[in-house]
């Protein structure tokens, strides 16, 4: 039989200082964990939501991203022969040549901290090839004009990207483009970009070659033969589904999360020691009580369980507090500089049910680990000695 929870609950307030400090330590760890995982979840959600499995992105072999890929016109000509390419109603092949460059644009409210924003030069065909990109305000840029459409996430994160505002782009930052449209892309990475007509973008950035070609395929069965063809001696380029390409860009995030997780693990060990310290004090201060409980018939197991419950109670309450504090970060807009594309990805921190579950699991583990040794000491207490010393 276990002791009543009211016994554990009220004992939490007997040693207010040590209980309070332990509470704060665990709450801070939970807060850091929740924010870190929200950051990772936000970035993953943006990148995983990007692209279509029917779109192949074609790059120069060895290039890890569009920004490091250069495709010559004759190479693009060879891609046209790819089997399974979808066609538009007018019979045109759905192959979009695109140029990917970067430009420094100030963050909203932080004009002195510009970010490297991805600028994509596209032809009209791109709006059909990227089928998850939808215009939500204004219109697409007219071919031949110095106009751009901006992604919703980029517009919310960076300055000067509202409709009809003017933005300076180009290698020397001296070409003014007018924002004429806003697009969404299911929250994916493309929403962090600025799109303009390819010839104007190429001219402004002094690029006479394209970065990538996006090939729209007719169906899932066409993916494998198309990839094999593009990688073959006939074309000698690299191709992969867009979804895979963007998933690979999350690798850096995974690294960051793993490194920080190690730090959180070390902090959790420290927290377990803080909990242990508090529980040792509780055991020492309650030797008489423990002896009395054992005398009237409570087993060693009941005593152990009681101290573990008390410790877990502190930690889970701290977890609730830490998670509540982390809600303040939920939905916060941030940007993340990819070391692959050297452009920023705008994203929102996302507190998911999975993160809440992880936070509770961590706090329970810290509570149990911290209580284990003091609870065993309580259970091993010699009843007669404790009664006498009382």
């Amino acid at each position, binding site marked *: 039989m276990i002791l009543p929870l009211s*016994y554990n609950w009220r004992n939490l307030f007997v040693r207010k200082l040590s209980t309070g400090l332990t509470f704060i330590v665990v709450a801070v760890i939970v807060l850091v964990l929740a924010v870190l995982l929200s950051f990772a979840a936000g970035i993953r959600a943006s990148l995983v939501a990007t692209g279509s499995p029917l779109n192949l992105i074609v790059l120069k072999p060895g290039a890890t991203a569009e920004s490091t890929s250069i495709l010559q016109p004759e190479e693009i000509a060879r891609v046209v022969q790819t089997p399974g390419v979808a066609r538009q109603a007018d019979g045109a092949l759905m192959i979009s040549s695109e140029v990917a460059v970067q430009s420094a644009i100030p963050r909203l409210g932080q004009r002195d901290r510009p970010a490297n924003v991805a600028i994509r030069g596209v032809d009209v065909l791109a709006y059909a090839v990227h089928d998850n990109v939808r215009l939500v305000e204004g219109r697409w840029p007219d071919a031949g004009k110095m106009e751009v459409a901006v992604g919703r996430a980029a517009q919310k994160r960076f300055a000067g990207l509202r409709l009809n505002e003017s933005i300076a782009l180009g290698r020397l930052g001296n070409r003014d483009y007018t924002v004429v449209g806003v697009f969404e892309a299911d929250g994916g990475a493309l929403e962090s970009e600025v799109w303009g007509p390819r010839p104007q973008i190429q001219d402004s950035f002094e690029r006479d070659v394209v970065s990538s070609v996006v090939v729209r395929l007719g169906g899932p069965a066409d993916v494998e033969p198309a990839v094999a063809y593009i990688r073959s001696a006939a074309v000698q380029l690299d191709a992969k589904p867009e979804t895979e390409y963007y998933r690979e860009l999350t690798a850096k995030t995974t690294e960051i999360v793993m490194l920080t997780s190690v730090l959180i693990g070390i902090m959790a060990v420290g927290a377990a020691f803080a909990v242990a310290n508090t529980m040792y004090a509780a055991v020492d201060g309650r030797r008489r009580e423990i002896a009395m409980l054992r005398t*009237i018939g409570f087993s060693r197991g009941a005593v152990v369980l009681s101290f573990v419950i008390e410790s877990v109670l502190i930690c889970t309450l701290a977890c609730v507090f830490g998670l509540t504090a982390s809600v303040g970060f939920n939905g916060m807009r941030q940007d993340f500089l990819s070391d692959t594309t050297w452009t920023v990805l705008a994203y929102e921190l996302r507190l998911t049910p999975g993160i809440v579950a992880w936070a509770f699991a961590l706090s329970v583990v810290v509570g149990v680990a911290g209580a284990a040794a003091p609870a065993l000491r309580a259970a091993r207490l010699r009843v007669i000695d404790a009664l006498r010393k*009382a």
Partner: protein
Amino acid sequence: MSGADIELKDVRKAYYKDRLEIPVLDGLDLAIRSGEFVVLMGPSGSGKSTLLHLVGGLDSPTGGSVRVGEARLENMNERELTAWRSRHVGFIFQMYHLVPVLTAAQNVELPLLLYRMSSGERRQRVTTALDVVGLSDRMHHRPNQLSGGQEQRVAIARAIVTDPDVILADEPTGDLDARTSEEILNLMNLLNSEFKKTILMVTHDPKAAQHGERIVHLDKGVLHREELTAARAGARA
């Protein structure tokens, strides 16, 4: 439940310190009738508390046998002794040992948590026990809101709430003034006479000892002498 008889035969108990044997009880024989109120007296180190712990199943003898009612305690392991204590023995300590964060009623309820019973039945038994000790109007008070005498009354209610066969009291009035001590001892007499509990009480106070029926004097771990108290002797005469 009425009291149980107690029988100790050739009981020996020794502690070891630095491999040195320190005998505390040295072949003690003692028989206590069911429903008897026996007082243990003797100088410090004579083995009174050790004897109380052996009868209460808190410790095991080095040799000899301890029987309480049907139970042969020397044959029981720790788990069995723990379960047995919860059913058959009520303990009263000098320092009360109440849980400071619980109310009087919750303190009294603690031993009942080891029983399978409804919360309503538990509440009923707690109220009855606090009625017996005259503290039903203090059931929601915490120990720090009670006087020493009231705390000891709560401890007595906790000891009797499971209706045990035997009540073991270790200097129950050692921390109380004379008037309160008298009240507590009268309460113990009530438990003995009205509820027929077998009581074994350790005390240094000769006046308190007179509340029992028989006084057993221990010295150096053996039974030194026995005497009937004045009240008992008077009753016989």
